[in-house]
Every structure is written in structure tokens, then in C-alpha cells.
């Protein structure tokens, strides 16, 4: 059972990191929406505008794939990963 507890601890750690990044780009940055929009962002769009159109959305896509990869590594480490299929 100790193995399971360790696995769960690592899994929870990954959850907190992932949710922290999620909270920053889904809510945190928009606390400063007005100020941030004065800055020129990627491709020349106003920064806040860019985040709402593309930035945050793209970060979520990358974040989920990154999370899935990390979680797989954790599962492998403890011998909990599933065999075969993808």
C-alpha cells in the first residue's frame, strides 16, 4: 500500500502544478486585463486580446498534453501503466 500512497502523492503534486498553471492563464492574468492590453503581444496584437483569442487557448492544449505525458511517467515509475494500446 505504501507504493500506492507514494504514487498518489506524486499524482497529487502534478495535479497542483497543472491547476496552478491553469489558474494563471484562465483567471490570474485577466486580473490585469486592462493594463496588459497596453502591451503589444505576439504577432502585433494587443496582449490581453491575444490571450483571449489564441494564447490561453493554445496554452491549455499544450498543458493537457504535458500533463498526460508527466502522469504517464509517474504511472510507469510505479509499474501502474497499462500495457499495449494507445
Amino acid at each position, binding site marked *: 500500500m505504501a507504493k*500506492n500512497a507514494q504514487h498518489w502523492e506524486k499524482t497529487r503534486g502534478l495535479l497542483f502544478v497543472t491547476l496552478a498553471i*491553469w489558474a494563471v492563464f484562465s483567471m490570474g492574468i485577466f486580473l490585469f486585463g486592462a493594463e496588459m492590453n497596453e502591451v503589444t503581444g505576439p504577432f502585433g*496584437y494587443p496582449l490581453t486580446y491575444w490571450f483571449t483569442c489564441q494564447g490561453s487557448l*493554445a496554452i491549455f492544449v499544450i498543458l493537457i*498534453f504535458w500533463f498526460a505525458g508527466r502522469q504517464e511517467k509517474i504511472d510507469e515509475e510505479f509499474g501502474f501503466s497499462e500495457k499495449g494500446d494507445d
Partner: protein
Amino acid sequence: MIKGNFIDNLPKVYGIYTGGFIGFIILMAIGEQMGMTAKAIGICFVGFTIFIYALIGWLSRTAQASNYYVAGRTVPTVFNGMATAADWMSGASFVAMAGGIYFKGYGYMALLVGWTGGYVLVATLLAPYLRKFGCYTVPDFVGTRYGGNTARLMAVIVLTVASFTYVTAQINATGTIAAVALDIPFQYAVYVGLVSILLCSMLGGMRGVTWTQVAQYIVLIIAYLLPVFWISNNIGAGFFPHFMLADEVARIGELEQQFGFVKNSAADLATVPKGLAGITKAHSEVNATPWAFISLALAMMMGTASLPHVMMRFFTTPSVKAARKSVGWSVFFIFLLYSSAPMLATLSKLALIDPNLPTGIIGKSIAEVQAIDWYQNWNQANLMFVSDFNGNGTVELNEFFMGGKAVVLATPEIAGLPYVISGLVAAGGLAAAMSTADGLILAIANAISHDVYYKMVDPKAETAKRLVVARVLLVVIGFAGATIAAMEIQGILGSVIWAFDFAMSGLFWPLVLGVWWKRANKEGAIAGMVLGLVSGFVYLVWVRSGGSGFLGITQLTFGIFGSTVSLVAMVVVSLMTSAPSAATQKMVDDSRVPAGASVIGGQK
């Protein structure tokens, strides 16, 4: 027809399908050059795509419960991503999203952030664990984790309330498009739409819906992206709009400064046809308070993670790790459309208001604008309107009105694209509405047939009988939805956003705590679902009947209130009652380990 190796052949099958669809578009374009009428092209597009979906639905027919409920758990990650994206993006996303951005700007963009960010919650908190549980439906998870029929029944009720709110809007959208494309009255078109929806799902259940949703995704994404790129090129804004519209966005800001946002008098506004709006908000400026933006985004994110028709898509993957990855693919495919909607809004607005562009109408004389062909068409369709409020004879920014749908529907014509594109857009909108309606109707029917009928009423029922019940329910629920849609009480039932709030009020915490808090028990979950849903509903009624609300929670974000009540109730009641049994706790432990058989035995 569909054999075992069908899964291996998927890329080839859908590759051929995509090629065939592009060929069909080219064929229609040639037809247009040779004098095919707009109406004939519309009928061909709608008829052809519905025929394909129905064919897929028929080929996917099945008599096995696991195929019917979870597509045999064989759907590969990328394809499940496409199916989820189609399941997710409704007719409203397709037709109305760009319009919402066009009129409301920043305040509306919270929906884009919320409707993608919610998938981070799905991937991290729920999908892999619910997949490991091995349930058929979301109430199946609630019933198994907490035990007892009351919890299960409550979950079915929350699911039905949320999904039914959502589905009537989708059937309505299907009917609207069918009515225009086939030129029949709306009251009949709704039922034509319904029959097409049922053709996809009735014979094959989840399996049929999965493979039609993939096909529908391909149609809807082509139908959305092709016009955006084409329009961008036609008005000289750049060949890849997503990376190249900074100048256009800046130019709109400049024009807004130049024209100014003149406020119309109430008497003037009364002459504008219902449902049309003028440009009153800055395009790219921050026009909402941080809390207004964040609360709306948060409500949509928690709602996303609680909507059963989305969650059940992740029950169809072959493994837990595939469930995680396929959430990533889902957001990727959603991202393709969502990141294009603001670009379309920008292109549409610039084309209409920039006096330097040949299509711009601001600053032209009223008579000149009223003589434009496309203006006449869309004015007749009740989606465009100009009026000379100040009597100076020219159209000012505050004298031009448009319906939200016009951004998607009319911009291709304004930018001078051939009619074949309008036919394509109709097919795309139909695909978006049908795929979401299918997912929703199936979610409701499956919950009632599996959780109420099989688990509570007649646990000994044979598979054949269960599937008959499931199919009968599918038809009954579909007809109920269509009947309400035909009554056209749009204002009440059109609000897709409410479905998110209802779902998060009742289901978010019982699902999340079911996985992440072992101490959560049956009594707590029931209290959480009942009090969450009821308090959310009461808050909504209160705000709508003139109540002031508190903390800036509006009728669009009432789920924040409902889910907070739900969380508190669930924690307090759980702690006041006894801990769940050892068997239940072991179940939770098992669900946290990806390897091994599913937690619910015997249900594959």
C-alpha cells in the same frame, strides 16, 4: 459491414471521406458556374451530408450493450478528440460565436477561455478516474461510488435538467438551418432535423454517434475555416489570418476613434427590427471588469467538467492513458475553430465599416447602401438594417444594425465569395447542431435506460430488452425536445449557458470529491446535488425576476453560487455522517491506479 479491422483503417476511411467531401464541394462550385440555383445547391449540401451521416449510423448498428453505451471502448485518441469536439461545438458555437465576439468584444471572450480551459479540469480531475471506474454513464459513476438508488436518481435528474436545457436549443438550430436550406416551414423542419439526428444514434447508440460525430467534425471545420481564409485573402488582409490581422485590429480601433460610439435614443432604437444590434463596444479593448470576465470563465470551466454528454465521450477510449490524451486532442480540435472565430469577427467588421474598402458601408449614402444586392438579401432575412437617424443622408456607425448570425452567414457573400460557400456553411452549421444534439439526447436516454430502468427497475432485464428500452427512450426524448423547440420559446430555452450552470451546481463537486476525497459519502453527495441544484435554480429565478443578486453573480454565472452551496453542503453532511464502507474506499483506491481491470466488474 464494419469489421474488426475497421479501427485500424480509420485514417484511411476518414481520409477518403474528407477527399470525397472536398470533391463534392468542387462539384457544387462547378454546378454553380453552370447555372445551378442557390436553392438547389443548398438542398444538395444538406441532403448529401445527412445521407452520409445516416449511412454511417446504419453501418454502426449493434446489438451489444458495450457497443451501444460506450462504443465498445475502442475509439482511438485522435478520433475521440474529433468526436468530442463535434459533440462540444454546438450550432450556437458555429453560428453565433463570431457574432458574439463582433458585438460584445472582450466581455464575450471569457466564453472562449472558459470553454477551452474547462478541459484542463476534465483531464486532471475527472476523465481518467471515471474511465478507470468503467461506468457506462455519469450517474452510473455516482451510483457506484456513493451507493444507493437515491444518489443515482439525483444524478440522473441533474443530468436531465442540464442536458435538456441544452438540447432544445440544438434541435431548434437544426430546424432553422433545415428550414432555410430545404425551404420548408420551421414547424416541419424541426422534425426533419430530429429524424436526421435519430438516424445517427438509434441503431448504433454511442458507436453510431461516435463515427457520425467524427464525420460531422470534418464537415464543420472545413465549413468554418475555408471561408475565414478565403475572406481574409479576398479583402487583402493576409493569407494566414490568425497571424496577420494585427494591422486590421488596430485599424478597427482607429475607425472606432474616428466615428465614435454615438448613443442612439430609445425612440430611434425602437424602429430597429428585433434581434439586431449595432456596434457599441470597442473591438479589442478591455471592456469588462476583471471579476465579470473571470467569474464567467470560471462558471464555464466548472460547467464543462460537469456536463455528462462530454464526460461520457471519455468512457469510449481503450485505456485510462488514452482518455487523458484524448482530452488534449479534443481541445486541440476545438481550438482550431475557436481561434478562428475572433478572426472572422475582425474580418467581418473591417469589411463592413472601413470606408477604404469597397465593401465598407459606413460613410456611404443610405440610398447607395440600400441598393446593394447583399444588403437587400440580408435585410429581407431580417439580419441587416440601416436607418438615417440624424437625417444627414449617410450611414454612420450607430445607424447600422446586424443580427449576430450574420457574421458567419453573411460575411462570405459580402466579401464576394461564391454561393457554394453559403451552402457549405449551412452544412457546417447543421453538422455542429446535429452532433451536439445527438450527444445530448443519447446522454439523457442512456442515463434513464441504464441507471433508472436497468439498475433500479429491472436489474434482470436481458440485453436485447435493455437496448429496446434505450432506443424507445431516445425517440421519446428526441420528440419531447423537438416539440418544445417547435414552440419557439427561444428566450427561455435558447440559453445554452444555463446548462453549464445547472450542471456545475449539481454535479461538479459530487464528481470531483468522489475521486479526490475518500471521506465523501452518500449522504453528502445527495445533499450536494439536491441543495446545489435547488439553490442555483432559486438564484436564477430570483435574478430573473428582478432580484439584485450578490457578488456580481448574474443569471449567466449562477452556477458559482449553486456549486458553492453544493460544496459546503457536501462537506458538512459527509463529516456529520459516517465514513463510507471499506469496500467503497477500496473502490476509490482502485480507481487511482490506471493499470488493471475496471473498478466495476463485468461491464467491460
